[in-house]
């Protein structure tokens, strides 16, 4: 994630008023870019083609259920934190699925705005940290590779 770019959050829910509410909130209180979809399929297309930092999805949707959608997201981009919005009735199923699909968090509906913002921030922070970690690992690997190259040169000289 480049430091210049604002984090991009993708929201998927079949209910438009949910999308509007969350978008308005995040627009007011956070610097994130919000992209909303009522269709999981369209969301997948977008995620496949565009850099995205976080995905939030509803559980019960006509096209496909949230767990399946987020599973597909994981296949596409395993590094992106995935969060599910569940109603009271689906909580148990959601919790079971969390382990199967490897979700970061679940948010219960109706949600507390503060809690929502917090979870999103933590998720994005984690994403950042992971990215930095990976960058660092890349750097280390690169340094390690260079060291190995130098070592070989040296050995070559002595051998």
């Amino acid at each position, binding site marked *: 994630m480049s430091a210049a770019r604002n984090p991009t959050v993708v929201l998927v829910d079949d209910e438009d008023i949910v999308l509007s*509410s969350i978008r308005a909130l995040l*627009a007011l209180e956070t610097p994130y870019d919000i992209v909303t979809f009522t269709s999981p399929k369209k969301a997948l297309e977008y995620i496949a083609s565009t850099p995205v930092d976080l995905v939030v999805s509803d559980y019960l949707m006509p096209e496909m259920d949230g767990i399946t959608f987020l599973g597909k997201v994981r296949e596409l981009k395993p590094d992106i934190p995935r969060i599910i919005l569940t*109603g009271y009735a689906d909580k148990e199923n959601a919790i079971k699925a969390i382990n199967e699909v490897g979700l970061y968090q679940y948010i219960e509906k109706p949600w507390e705005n503060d809690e929502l913002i917090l979870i999103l921030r933590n998720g994005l922070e984690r994403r950042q940290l992971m990215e930095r970690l990976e960058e660092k690992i890349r750097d280390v690997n690169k340094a390690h590779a260079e060291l190995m190259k130098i070592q070989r040169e040296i050995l070559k000289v002595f051998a």
Partner: protein
Amino acid sequence: MSIRATAAERPESGAHRVFALLIPPPEDEDPILFDEIRRRVQSGIWMVAIISMVLPTGSLLFFGTGLFEEPYPLLRPVRRLIVESNLTILAMGILFAALSRGVRAPNQGRFFVAAFAVVAAVISARIQLSVSPPQLMGESNFFLLLVIALVPYRPLQALALALASTAAVTVAALFMPVAEGLELSMEVRERVLGQAVPVLFVFNITSSIVALFLYDSRRSTWLAQVERDRLAKELAASEEKFRSLFEQSTDGIFALDTKSGIVLIANPALKEILGVEPEELVGRSFLERLHPTEVDAAMEAARSYIRGPRTAARFHAKLRREASTQPVICEIAIHRPDDPDVVSGTIRDVTQQVRLEEEIRERAAQLERANGLIQSAQTKLVQSEKMASLGSLVAGVAHEINTPLGAIQSNADLSRRALAQLEAAREPIDPAQGDAGREKLKRLSTVLQEANTITLEATQRIVRIVRELRDFARLDQAEEQMADLHRGLESTLSLLGYIFKNRIRIEKKYGELPEILCHPHQLNQVFMNLLQNAAQAIDGEGTITLETRVEGRGPAREIVIAIRDTGQGIKPEHLERVFDPGFTTKGVGVGTGLGLSISYQIVQDHKGTITVESELGRGTTFTVRIPARAA
């Protein structure tokens, strides 16, 4: 009895009495009397026959052997004649003896015997004439007397006989030839006749008068005899009847002496009932036969019965059975209470019946109790089904409300935040930052507007859900009313929305439905049950199709609602049990199995029908038909 009546009617005046004596009532009026008389005539003839055989035989011996010579030397010339005559009479006697059995009617017999008497008189007259000097008395009367004495002749018949006899003798005396070798002049004949005939005549007439009285008295005797025989027969028959009843009756028959309570009569049936021979019972007090528990009550009842007015009574009592401690419950009926010295009645063993009755009463009570339990259990089950159905309804509603509620909450909070920022932004706006500040204000104002709009929208949604809920339950109206069933289907679908949401497609094929008179909240329960079942039948993804139409016309018009699912289908062997209360294939703990049976009941109450068709693996269709009644 005509003869008896005739006898009772017999008048007392002298002239009538004489007439009645001369002309007695005919003999053939009463067949029994006729037969009696016939028999008497028969036996009379028999006796005449016997005598007609014995006397000539004796006479033949006397005259044949010459024994007569000494006492009756004068009879020597007529010996041959006497022998011939005796043989004749003997022959006649034998003939009568043979014929006597064949007498069919009294008069028949009387005639032949009369003829015999006349012939005998003539024969004897001939003998008399042949004796020297000739006589005409004595034996010529003998046979007439004999016959009249032994054979009952009616008065006029006897008179005729007497006259005939006299006439015959007279003629014989005048013209009959005497014994061989003898000669009798007319002069002598006339002289003899002149002496004899008057006497003969008087004698014979007297005989016939005697016969008249004889007949009369004999007749009375016969009548009495016949009557006695008849009464005796009747008595014997009725005695026999009573005896067989007494012996063979399955009910016990008894009679007690009132004062001492001693058994006077007991029939064999009592042996079956009490285990004691009738002979043992007679002569002992009835108290011995009472069951120990009954004695005091019986004594009291007996005392009041004897003291009080005697009525026929029927009651139960416990009697003692020989060689058993169990009482025999008997139904005792007392009859003919008018006899002060004797109490009689019947006893019937009703132990079985009484026991059965008790058992039946107990069973009935048990059944009632069981019934009560079943009913209360049933009520509880229906209640729990209602609660379960209500539970899923509530879950659905909660889920539906959740979303708009979340939106409202979020937006209310959003408004707060925006307002907070707005508050902060109301600090003097730096003209230098003019545009940026105005931009911020604009942005905040937009946010607030949007939040408000969303809140309103969400509120509307909740209002709609509550209305649908109210529609579904129709809590405010429980009576029969006109309703559009489409509305009921829609509100039910909406309330169940969450279970269809992501896997089941709803297809609606609605026709034109008129409003009908019904209990809408009850029908909504049916729709909910069918839709829930349809959703549960579909494993994974599928479609539920709702078809509505009107069929028939006039009074046969009905609304048809078909709910089809593409689920697993119902097995053929389960199909007919699907509406049975408690039948469920959903497994233990899921539902009470009462949903369809309650739906069935509701549809029935609406005078409609609910049917099911199913194909394993393809799907199931439930079809509800309700008569389209208008208010």
